[in-house]
């Protein structure tokens, strides 16, 4: 789909997605078991109310977006979101984003993949090896060049974090298959 249309109708798409989610959430709330111990509201009371509020807010978001588009003859993307006078964005945890390119989103997705990969290998390979691989992979991906440099950073970093978390803080991080082999 044209990126311009995506930008123009961004809040409409987001609102539609949230509306769908509120419906699913309502269904989940309706499936909550009724307990003889619950009061007049019940365990499903708040979830159902939240589903309704989210649906209303989603509809408001959609309506606002469509009305803005109509008022401006079909385009709102040129007009940015209102910026407060003195940047209270940090205060409210609202960080205004410069639009990312597809390539940049893919970079972020790759970072997510590294995290998922780490979680998948952690129980098998153990903390020391997994963390060394994570350090090396992320550093290489973000632009560190030269295999010896990457390997040195990963090994030294892995050793440092192993000493910090496992030896000093005594966190029982997964040991993995290598420790079993060493014990034999």
């Amino acid at each position: 789909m044209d990126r311009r249309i995506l930008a123009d109708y961004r809040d409409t798409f987001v609102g539609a997605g949230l509306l769908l989610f509120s419906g699913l959430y309502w269904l989940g709330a309706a499936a909550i078991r009724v307990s003889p111990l619950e009061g007049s509201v019940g365990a499903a009371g708040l979830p159902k109310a939240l589903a309704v509020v989210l649906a209303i807010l989603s509809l408001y978001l959609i309506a606002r977006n469509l009305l803005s588009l109509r008022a401006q003859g079909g385009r709102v993307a040129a007009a940015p979101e209102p910026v407060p006078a003195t940047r209270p964005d940090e205060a409210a945890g609202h960080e205004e984003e410069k639009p990312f390119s597809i390539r940049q989103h893919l970079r972020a997705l790759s970072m997510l993949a590294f995290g998922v990969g780490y979680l998948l290998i952690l129980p098998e390979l153990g903390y020391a090896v997994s963390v060394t691989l994570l350090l090396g992979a992320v550093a290489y991906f973000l632009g560190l060049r030269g295999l010896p440099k990457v390997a040195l950073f990963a090994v030294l970093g892995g050793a440092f974090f192993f000493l910090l978390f496992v030896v000093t803080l005594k966190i029982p991080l997964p040991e993995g298959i290598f420790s079993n082999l060493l014990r034999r």
Partner: protein
Amino acid sequence: MEAVGYAWDAVTHISTLLAAVIGIAWGIVGGSLPGISASIAIALLLPFTYGMDPVPSLVMLAAAYHGAEYGGSIPAILIRTPAHGSAAATVADGYAMHQQGRGGEALGISLVSGVIGNFFGVLFLVFLTKPLGQIALIFTPPAYFALGILGISIIASLSNGAFVKGLIGAVIGLMISTVGLDPLSGVGRFTFSRPELLGGIDYILVLIGVFALSELWRQAAATEERKKANRDTRIRLPGRAMLRRIRRSQAIGTAIGIFEGCIPGAGGTVAAFLAYNESKRWSKEPELFGHGAPEGIAAPEAANNAISSSALIPTLSFGIPGSNSSAILLGGLILHGLDPGPLLVTKNPEVVYGLFGGLFFANLAMLPIGILVLTPAIWLVNRPKPYLLACVYVLIVSGIFSIEQSTFDLWIVIGTGIIGYFMRLLGFPLLPLVLGCVLGHMIEANYRRSLVVSSGDYSIFFTDPVAVTLLILAAIFIVGSVVRDIRDRGKQARTGIAVTAPTRP
């Protein structure tokens, strides 16, 4: 007198002193790294405090908050890159001074102004928390419910330009808080037959996922080149004449910082820019601002440091965090089984006054530590992005595992990180979501408890004077924000441009 005893106990305990020193040092170093904001620096410390006693752990987190506010000014002055929003106001005059060869002097002004702002911030924290805590006695379940609603409405209404998205974030946060066993009947909700979800989703996991992990991914995706700081810069503390010159700006910054800190959601960025503007307005030489005026550093730095103390007033007294960083501190309280809110001072005076004592010490320690850690901080600021982000990634994933020794928690953090990334992308403020998670249990449990007490009669919310006052305030915030939203959108539609009034230096 009892309070002084608790504070004295804390500051004569080596673990508290050590925690304060480590917290300040880490805060300065972490806060000085562009992209690693104050809140992320504190979030990374959180898992390390899990095994500690409550007082040193809270002192460490709060000291890191103080340190990070000063740390943010280091790259702002040296490489024109504020490490976080609240240091942005320092850039104009700080960098101008650096270009004039007065970078060390600018750093000294920033450090001293921060210490002064902090000192008065902690004083107000001490004097205001106790009286506010006294009102705990008149808080009933309906009042607690209303307090939760008010907290959410304030934060959402302060999400400028994104009020509806702020409310949506808060609702999603409340939805996350419903996962797990129902607080009254013990029925499982949204647990998907996973035993790990029976206890609910820990708010710390949401916080670290939404703030730290999503920011890390965003930083990794950004491709801009980072500038390098001069390694030979040495700090120069202001002399008597300079102190006389900047004292008015420091007073303005401190006053604004303290006031803004008491308002949940106002935050350091607003305070710093307001302080800068007011300092300029009251200056005899406003034309020097933006060209290396020391007052242009003193005012915002005093303000954002004062706020790092005064933002703890609503956090400790009402359980409503004033900023992202104080939200993480609130997580520290919850992590240690403490219940932030009106009863905290009454039930855990040793923790609250111990924290105050530790903060006074941390503030004193900031001066020498600020001088000592400048060189390592500059060294770290100059490290290439791959090293920094890889280490932060490992710190996050290792730290999360340390809390409950559960890989399931790591999946939750990754999940909330994805939510945070999309929220940033789509212009949703993050704090309301976290606040929804924090306040969800309080809102629901007290709402239902109230109805049990009144045998299902909803008038209980309108007959309790505290509850009705808080609910009216919440309604004012919500209606006011809706009206402002509609008015701004109308104006935008008519003119074709967004309603903007930036007064950045």
